[in-house]
């Protein structure tokens, strides 16, 4: 109980401060917590309200998944091909790093219009570098003893990749997924503002354009809640439950 007391106090203090600031702000500029929650509730219960949440979650997942597959494939390729390593090192990674995500979003709007593809690809491009750099780094840190052991049983590279190398990369993939998702949730907002006519980001821009401040706060709160559930809930759970085994290094006999 004592462990929960301080965090609870901090949250109560935050809400109280918000309330006091809202009360002292010029009317309508800062909705108080209750007004924010009510606004969000009204938006969500409006026709197609929850659809906007669903479509955003879908885009974040699909975009991150596409970025993950692309990043992992490229990262794994660096191990098996010198050409792939050179391409990743000199072109692909710098390009992904140097071009602002908003520029990708604008280019995708020009190419695909206001279609699902635009936010999904924008998220994929934003998430891919996290997977690429982590897998690439992980590939350099692989325990060559374990790979030699595996290759004493088979010469099938695919089997060694699946049974030994990819599992060895799980901690790197986990770190990549955490950063990738976190970025995806942030980038989905501008991606949907520029490139979509649905989703939470689009609703946020509608609220903004029609100067409905409580709605802007409401959708922002929705984003915050979803990200907190993800980051503190899901990833912490997976980390505590499953990643323990990977972090234990095999001790050399002494």
């Amino acid at each position, binding site marked *: 109980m004592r462990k929960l007391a301080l965090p609870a106090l901090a949250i109560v203090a935050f809400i109280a401060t918000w309330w006091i600031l809202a009360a002292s702000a010029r009317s309508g500029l800062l909705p108080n917590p209750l007004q924010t929650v009510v606004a969000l509730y009204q938006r969500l219960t409006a026709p197609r309200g929850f659809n906007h949440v669903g479509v955003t979650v879908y885009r974040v997942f699909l975009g991150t998944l596409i970025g993950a597959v692309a990043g992992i494939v490229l990262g794994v390729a660096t191990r098996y091909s010198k050409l792939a390593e050179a391409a990743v090192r000199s072109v692909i990674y710098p390009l992904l790093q140097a071009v602002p995500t908003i520029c990708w979003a604008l280019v995708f709007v020009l190419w695909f219009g206001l279609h699902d593809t635009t936010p999904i690809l924008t998220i994929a491009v934003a998430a891919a570098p996290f997977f690429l750099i982590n897998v690439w780094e992980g590939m350099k840190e692989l325990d060559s*003893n*374990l790979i030699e052991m595996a290759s*004493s*049983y088979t010469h099938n590279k695919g*089997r*060694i990749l699946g049974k030994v190398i990819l599992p060895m990369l799980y901690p790197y993939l986990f770190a990549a997924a955490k950063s990738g998702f976190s970025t995806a949730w942030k980038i989905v907002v501008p991606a949907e503002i520029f490139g979509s006519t649905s989703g939470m980001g689009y609703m946020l821009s509608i609220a903004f354009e029609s100067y409905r401040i409580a709605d802007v706060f409401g959708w922002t709160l929705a984003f915050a809640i979803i990200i907190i559930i993800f980051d503190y809930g899901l990833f912490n759970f997976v980390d505590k439950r499953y990643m323990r*085994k990977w972090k234990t290094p*095999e001790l*050399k*006999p002494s």
Partner: protein
Amino acid sequence: MENPGTEALVIKDLRKGYGPLEVLSGISFSVARGELVCILGPSGCGKTTILRIAAGLIPFDSGEVVINGEDIGKNRNGLRNVSVVFQEPRLLPWRNARKNVQLSLELRKDSHGEEGTAEVDSALELVGLSDFAGSYPHELSGGMKQRVALARAIVTEPEILFMDEPLTGLDMRNREELQDEIVRIWSNKKVSLLLVTHDPAEAIHMADRIIVLSGRPTRIKSIIGVKSPRPRPRDSSEVRELEKTIRGLFAGESIGESPRR
């Protein structure tokens, strides 16, 4: 396929160099089916290199390596009948003991489906770890981990088992226990065994024949047969006599001290 004959492993005139540095030259010996042969030599003499070449893990420059009648320089079919136990256990930390043993079957197998659970269980039983099947490597002692590695090697039913100083990392008690255990498993499985060691006492205790190597460039100094029946006593006039002979071969060279009891 040639007639496998009575030899599990034949090595003829093996040469291996790294650039101008000649590591091995003129190495020829064989291991008969069901024989236990130890390679003994000073550290850094290339004894591990011989084993790694024979296990198909590194290439060689010239000569012939024939496993079960198949020349591994020509195709790798002979290597299907080989398992290796390394100096370190090399277990996957995310798999428990049972799953680590099962790994070699998964890696070997060309078809998909249920892995041989019965084989895994009997391999674990053979190394005395049935009660630890669900334990993860970090929960096992050094000796237990090496037993898991041993079970992983024998579960594929190899014709020939290569062991690269498998007991070097262990303390005296574990070493002697595992020496006897390896001999027991070898005779139980009727497998051919080639074990690399730097410890004369270990070789004398375990081997049918001891291949004694020189320092670099590595050549075979002598091949010594050990006739005494098993189980062998740790200390007897015969053991002391053999150890004296072997140490005599290394006059002027450093051979690993066998730890005294």
